[in-house]
């Protein structure tokens, strides 16, 4: 096993771990400051009119500042990366089935782009808060870094496109989702460009345009990937009869996403329904309403569905998930006809037998006492049979 032979999903996880380590603590310090605001009555995040001493306001909205305030750098990068998790997972599996010829070049650029993306995501956070009154120098800095970060993103997307080249693609339902992701993500990325500029964002901030932009990025990146991955885990022999039904579901998902968000991109400017700015006092909940009593719980449930909408209301995928996990058929060793090691059930079964020995702990893989890894090394040296 070499670094470059790792699946891209593992690379994405690695960069995400790095982001979690270094980007969450500033978020934590922002949380501490907000806690002090609530508990001790300080005014770190409250507008300067409320408490004297002219402390520069960090952000007008406490919620927004928590996610993207001065001291919570990179949490937006975390969101980028948790997305890339899911998309990398499903996509790398999908795309490996088509087995392009020059895979190593694609992998290298993918990995490098992911690393650079992770690094840059630490220094772009203020693009969520152009309207907080930052000066021209600071906004110039963040506009530059935001534009630069689009480069590795485009490289990653292009690498995904390129990896389809030369393959013979079977449009199974997971593949439908994977290929649907590609242009949707592209649309999302392109609509983000006006938002990267302070001057254009002045008009787009807090409008549905922003909502549309990140839904085009996030929904394909996570939801499509999750559906594709889940469906991928179901062997094809179990799926044949549902294929048409599910294919319609895939179409529904894409159409629905377009229906909800494309108008916002086109008719930009519809202001978002913002809650009124209520000065928080003890007795209110996070939304400014009078404090949460037990009677609100059923209300909250219904509201949850209203807000999340499509994901939580019954849809073909719920139906499919229920069906899949209720019927089982016998399958052979490689029902997915996968080409990578992690999908080979025979390998997994053999490894499981060995790993069940007493005293074999997860970190044993790094020592010469682990026969599974040793087997890989030996197979490497032996070469293809």
């Amino acid at each position: 096993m070499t670094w470059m032979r790792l699946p891209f999903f593992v690379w994405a996880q690695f960069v995400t771990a790095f982001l979690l380590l270094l980007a969450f603590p500033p978020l934590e310090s922002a949380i501490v400051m907000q806690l002090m605001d609530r508990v001790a009555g300080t005014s770190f995040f409250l507008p300067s009119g409320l408490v004297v001493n002219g402390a520069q306001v960090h952000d007008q909205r406490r919620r927004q500042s928590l996610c993207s305030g001065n001291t919570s750098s990179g949490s937006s990068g975390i969101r980028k990366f948790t997305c890339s998790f899911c998309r990398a997972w499903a996509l790398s599996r999908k795309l490996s089935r088509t087995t392009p010829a020059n895979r190593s070049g694609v992998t290298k650029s993918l990995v490098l782009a992911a690393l650079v993306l992770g690094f840059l995501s630490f220094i772009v956070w203020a693009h969520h808060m152009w309207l907080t009154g930052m000066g021209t120098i600071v906004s110039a800095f963040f506009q530059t870094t935001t534009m630069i970060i689009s480069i590795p993103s485009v490289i990653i997307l292009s690498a995904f496109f390129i990896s389809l080249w030369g393959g013979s693609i079977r449009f199974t339902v997971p593949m439908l989702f994977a290929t649907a992701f590609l242009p949707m993500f592209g649309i999302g990325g392109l609509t983000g460009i006006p938002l990267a500029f302070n001057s254009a964002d002045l008009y787009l901030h807090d409008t549905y345009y922003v909502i549309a932009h990140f839904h085009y990025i996030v929904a394909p990146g996570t939801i499509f990937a999750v559906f594709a991955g889940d469906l991928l885990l179901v062997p094809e022999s179990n799926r044949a009869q549902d294929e048409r039904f599910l294919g319609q579901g895939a179409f529904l998902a894409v159409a629905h996403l377009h229906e909800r968000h494309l108008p916002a991109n086109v008719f930009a400017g519809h202001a978002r329904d913002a809650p009124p700015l209520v000065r928080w006092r003890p007795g209110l909940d996070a939304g400014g309403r009078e404090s949460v009593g037990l009677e609100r719980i059923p209300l909250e449930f219904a509201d949850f569905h209203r807000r999340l909408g499509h994901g939580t209301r019954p849809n073909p995928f719920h139906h499919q998930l229920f069906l899949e996990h209720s019927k089982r058929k016998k399958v052979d060793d490689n029902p997915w006809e996968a080409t990578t090691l992690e999908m080979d059930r025979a390998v997994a079964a053999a490894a499981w037998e060995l790993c069940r020995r007493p005293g074999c702990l997860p970190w044993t893989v790094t020592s010469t006492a682990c026969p599974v890894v040793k087997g890989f090394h030996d197979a490497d040296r032996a070469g293809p049979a």
Partner: protein
Amino acid sequence: MLISFGSSFSHSFTCSKAMNNPPSTEPIEQETEHYAPQSHDVSKHVRGYLMVGATLLIFTALTVFLSYVNFGTQKANIAVAMVVATFKAGLVAYIFMHLSAEKKLIYRILIFTAIFVLGLFWLTYLACNAIRSFTNVA
């Protein structure tokens, strides 16, 4: 290429290796721990630790003294204080925490931290708006 690799591997692994060489069920032997004192002589470093401790105390006094000196602008005042504090922290990290004896892996982990923290401080300087003031800010 990958298909052949995968199938050949699975074939060779499951059919020949696993079948002919059943896995051993003995417990894994763990690494033996060394009980002897470390080879690098710690006693030589003790005097160094005491000297570093004294240096830290001197620099604390220096910090207090510098807080009464006005370097012109507020930015400069804060910068001086942060430089002294960073130096002290670096000294602690280097000597007390043995960073000088660590391998490159640790440095590689920490270099990103250093870049991001210093970048964070630098950005706060950028964010300071120049306002007409009684005491000079910018």
